[in-house]
């Protein structure tokens, strides 16, 4: 059928439909392309037309359901997912989306029933169903209300710091020659923070899948998942949390988002981080901030003020030109710079660095050895090294230095938008330091 045929059938072709052609699969792709370009209405027009012309096919309903869910139309999304499932009850992808839609809307019983209606036919399907089942169990056991309560407890604590307060703390530590470590705990770290009984028990498949995924992101392989040395490293990582000066964690809005989409990695990772750090509020432990503090410190000019304050700077990153770029800034003294291989998922964006190996174990051992080679009192270290970077921060602080986990800001300073939040790179330029750092 051609667009002309549609007109003959009496239905006026809507904007965008002509791009879809007569093929339902091409129509879905065209809609996805429009959606990814931000043309939600154009995508919706194609999918609505697709559902009208081919109501017996699941694709249109499913994709429209996803659009509606993203737009916050939970009821509409549920309706479309139901139509998609009715069109093809054996389609696991649609089933998974429908279950997550229901779970994200807090309808866990319906989600469970929807999942139970599916009969896996392959080992892969069995595994995927098991993980989704465990996600639902996790959301029952650790409901959004619990995670939000923990996030609010941290945010409203007197120990919670905004960007300005964090900057003051860092500056004071540098001025007084005191050790300081700011680490941020995101999704990746969260995958390695869990109750051992849960990790080896009822949520085992879910946690292993999340850990494998993040290992592939970091190292390009998940071969480390059961390696003793890497698991031992996890114990050292966990020890860095109570020892840190400031810990960046997730916040209530993020919790709402992760539970709202029933994210298989976001829900347990964010919640487990909060469960892990919340008890630290009771003692004389670290202060807290959001795990987006690196972005806030950049945007507030705080990082630039700290870099330009005359203290020697250390840098750990995967960007070979970045150290020299920092050193060229007037008033910046780049005292040490260590390279680590890039996170493999972003290798294409970051480009060639000349480092053929993986961050762990080779480069990790070399960086630790170099950090242990001397005292770092009075040195401000900017650490952009992911999960292992938390251990570097710990080593630096243990040797008197000030370590700030700047994460993906190093990517942005190098002109690489590795995260969706960095898409507007102009906001995150390193700059020459001349016009940055003025208090706003």
């Amino acid at each position, binding site marked *: 059928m051609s667009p002309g045929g549609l007109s003959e059938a009496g239905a006026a072709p809507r904007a965008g439909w002509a791009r879809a052609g007569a093929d339902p699969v091409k129509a879905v792709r065209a809609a996805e392309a429009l959606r990814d370009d931000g043309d939600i209405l154009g995508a919706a027009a194609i999918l609505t037309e697709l559902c009208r012309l081919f109501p017996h096919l699941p694709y249109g309903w499913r994709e429209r359901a996803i659009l509606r869910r993203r737009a916050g139309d939970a009821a509409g999304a549920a309706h479309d997912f139901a139509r998609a499932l009715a069109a093809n009850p054996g389609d696991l992808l649609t089933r998974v989306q429908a279950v997550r839609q229901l779970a994200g809307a807090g309808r866990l019983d319906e989600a469970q029933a929807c999942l139970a209606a599916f009969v896996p036919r392959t080992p892969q399907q069995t595994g995927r169903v098991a993980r989704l089942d465990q996600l639902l169990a996790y959301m029952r056991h650790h409901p959004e209300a619990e995670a939000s309560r923990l996030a609010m407890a941290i945010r409203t604590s007197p120990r919670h710091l905004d960007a300005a307060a964090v900057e003051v703390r860092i500056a004071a530590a540098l001025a007084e020659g005191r050790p300081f470590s700011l680490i941020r705990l995101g999704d990746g770290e969260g995958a390695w923070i869990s109750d051992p009984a849960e990790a080896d028990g009822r949520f085992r498949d879910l946690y292993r899948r999340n850990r494998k995924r993040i290992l592939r992101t970091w190292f390009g392989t998940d071969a480390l998942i059961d390696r003793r040395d890497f698991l031992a490293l996890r114990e050292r990582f966990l020890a860095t949390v109570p020892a840190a000066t400031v810990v960046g964690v997730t916040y209530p809005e993020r919790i709402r988002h992760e539970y709202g989409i029933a994210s298989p990695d976001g829900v347990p990772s964010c919640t487990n981080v909060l469960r892990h750090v919340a008890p630290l509020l009771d003692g004389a432990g670290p202060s807290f901030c959001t795990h987006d503090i690196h972005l806030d410190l950049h945007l507030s000019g705080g990082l630039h003020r700290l870099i330009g304050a005359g203290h*020697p700077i*250390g840098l750990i990153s995967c960007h*070979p*030109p970045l*150290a*020299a770029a920092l*050193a*060229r800034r007037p008033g910046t*003294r*780049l*005292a*040490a*710079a*260590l*390279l680590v291989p890039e996170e493999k998922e972003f290798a294409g964006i970051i480009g060639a*660095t*000349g*480092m*053929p*190996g993986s961050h762990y174990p*080779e*480069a990790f051992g*070399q960086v630790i*050895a*170099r*950090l242990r*080679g*001397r*005292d*770092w*009192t*009075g*040195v401000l270290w900017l650490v952009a090294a992911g999960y292992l970077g938390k251990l570097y921060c710990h080593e630096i602080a243990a*040797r*008197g230095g000030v370590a700030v986990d700047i994460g993906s800001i190093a990517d942005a300073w190098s002109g690489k938008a590795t995260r969706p939040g960095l898409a507007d790179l102009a906001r995150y330029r390193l700059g020459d330091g001349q016009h940055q750092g003025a208090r706003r």
Partner: protein
Amino acid sequence: MIAATLDSADGIVMTTDPATARERALRALATRQPLDLAVAVVTAHPDDETVGLGGAMARLRNLTLVQLTDGAPLEPDVAARAGFPSRQSYAAARRGELVDALAVLVEGRLARQVFYEIPDGRLADHLAVAVERLVEDLIHVDVVLTHPYEGGHFDHDAAAFAVQEACARLARHGAHAPTRLEFTSYHRLHGLLRTGRFLDDPAAPEIVVPLSAEAARRKEVAFACHRSQAGNLRMFGFGPERFRAAPTYDFARPPGGEAMYGMEVWRGLSRAFAGATEA
């Protein structure tokens, strides 16, 4: 812990201060012990690393190799004489030979490998870019090993200049700069070609490191990997390797040895040095 305060004179902190790095590196090289410091080897051509320190490379545990030229001159007849249809294919072959040699010398264990891909013989034409890139690359290492300034090959001399200038710029900007060491290449003295030796300089004492049987075997196999250079490599043997702290050269003056490439070429080289020197 080494010290609780910043390093001495210039107040710059480094992962390992230059004097300590120099001492540790030369001691490790002399005693044939593994060296964990971050070391960059900067060479003009693929095969210079094999000639200069093929026996020692395996003991450099955190090694960055910076290859300044691709080993293929712009003149098409050179590639043709070597049996290649184009300069590009000659360069690709030399890259492949280097990879093979490194598999023997360090079993492929490199922390980092960087190719500047400047045409062979044209380093002087690209000195400004080479120095800028070296500033970016050498800031990450404690030690850099490169050619001496000795009049043997103009790319070698240009490499010596580029490394000294890059390190000087880092130091001037208050940034970490590695300590500079040298390995041997070749030069002419009293009309005779000398390989595997430095020009005599009482102010720059050298260390002499005999090759172990295993190192000599590895080096010999690595030589064979540089298949397109078999003729040139016959000039070099498998005797001791020599290293020393790099002197601070005055590149406005001719090299200490006879300029094998001729004084006219040196004058051009000298102009290139002057043009690439930061005021």
